[in-house]
Structures are given as C-alpha cells and as structure tokens.
C-alpha cells in the first residue's frame, strides 16, 4: 500500500482514461469534446512516464513529448475549424454536423 509501484500508476491512468472516455461519450458540445480528448492524452502520458521510470528507459518519455506536440497541433487546427463552424452556424453542437456537405 505504501510502496508506489508501476501498477498504481497504470490504475490511475485507467481511471483517468475512463473519465475521458465518459466525457467523449456524453458530451454534445464540441469544445467539451476537445477537453475530454485532452484528458485521454494526458492519462496516456502518465502511464508512459511511469513505465519509463520503472524500466529505466527513456523511450516512454520521448513518446510523451511527441504526444504533447501532437496535442498542441490538434488544438490549433481543431479550434480554427471550430471558429469557422461557429461563425457560419452560431452553434457548435455535434448533432448539427450530421452531413458532410459544408
């Protein structure tokens, strides 16, 4: 209980990942959906860092860096698209985006 091992971090990562998935499933607002995606990426980063630490290997941390870079670019492009959509429709609900035709 007092000795923190790899399993503790993996279980924490599981809990956070479930919270993120619940967010992805129940949200309708696209901005909130982006928040849930950030939670997913962060929970995976925790497990990467933990595995990297407990196996004395730096590859996990490297992956975490690239995940952070991808998350940053995802936010930039996603928010740009969201602003365009909001300007056109005044709504960012997911249910409106049922057709592919712009």
């Amino acid at each position, binding site marked *: 209980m007092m000795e923190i091992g790899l399993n503790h971090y993996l279980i924490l990562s599981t809990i956070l990942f479930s919270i993120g998935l*619940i967010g992805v499933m129940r949200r309708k607002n696209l901005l909130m959906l982006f928040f*849930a995606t950030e939670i997913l990426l962060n929970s995976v980063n925790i497990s990467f860092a933990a595995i990297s630490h407990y*196996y004395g290997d*730096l590859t996990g941390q*490297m992956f975490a860096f690239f995940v952070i870079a991808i998350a940053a*670019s995802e*936010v930039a492009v996603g928010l740009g698209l*969201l602003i365009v959509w909001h300007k056109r429709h005044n709504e960012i609900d997911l249910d409106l985006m049922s057709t592919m035709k712009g």
Partner: protein
Amino acid sequence: MFEAIAFYLFAFLTIVMFYITVTTSQALYALSALAAGMIFISAFFFILGADFLGAVQIVVYSGAVMALYAFGMMFFDTTRDVKEKKGNKYLITGLATLAAILVVVIVSAPLIGENISAYYPMTEGAGNTQEIGMVLFTKYLVPFELAAVMLLVAMISGIVLAGKKMDLSLTLMSDREIIEMREEKNKKVLL
C-alpha cells in the same frame, strides 16, 4: 512514505478535477478544472523523475493549450449552459471502463509477458534534461524534425482557418455596413 502521500494526494486531486471537467455544464468551470488537472498531472512527472517532461507539461498544456482554449472560448457563447446527450448512464460508464481496461492490458501485456531490457538506458551521472537531450538529438532526431514541421503546418492552418475576415472590425463599421454583412452571411448559410 512521502512519495506515497504525494501520489495519493495528487491522484485524488487529478481525478476530482477531471471529473468536474467532464460533468459540469459551465464551460468556464470545465476550462479552469482542466487547467488545474494538467498542473496536478505534472506533479506525477516530477515524482517519477521526469523533470523536463513535467516542466513541458506545465508550459505547453497549462500555458499554451489552455490560453488557446481561453482565447477560442471568446468566440463562442460560453455563458449559457451546455446541453448534453441523454443516453444510458450505466452503459456509457461500463463501456468507458471496459475500453480503458483494454487499453491498459494492451500496453502492459508485453511488460508482463517477458523481461524487457531498457532500449535507451539512463546515463549515470546525467540529469534528466541532459539525458533527454542526448536521446532526442541522436535516436529521435527525425521524429523531432517531423514534429517541428507538423507544428508549423498546424500553426499556418490555424491562422488561415481562424483569420478569415479578421480585418473587419464591427466597432469601426457603420450600422448599414453591418446589416449588409449580416444579410450576405445569412444568404450564404441558406445556400
């Protein structure tokens, strides 16, 4: 001892913050809770000895990404409550937990299955930042460059997408011009 206390404290705080992010109906609460959760997550990186990753987490997530979200939220109407999907709550929770356990099993299966050895072992006597520099600029140089190009592409696309009609200012236009612009916009939506 202190590691255990810190772990449980920050685990509790992170879970609470992310739970608020997922369940609240106010966009501003969700944003602030997410920013707090990101900072608490960086504490795990510091506990695990990944100092540089923790610093990057604070700078990039809590700094850049959150600032970007806060800036983006100025475009949206954030004062009204967020509507949510009405689905089966137990089904959603069960599916989410199942999927998360599946991900952990997939990740941890090779760890349990065989004795893995470190691919890029930690160097003795070097700090975490030094080690990361050594590995990043030798073994991971090509992905690093690709990430740089990807960030550049994302930046340009963000400017192109969000910067449309940014040169128009509603405060400097006359009422007539604004009405004309609105009508033109409505026409476009109807098309």
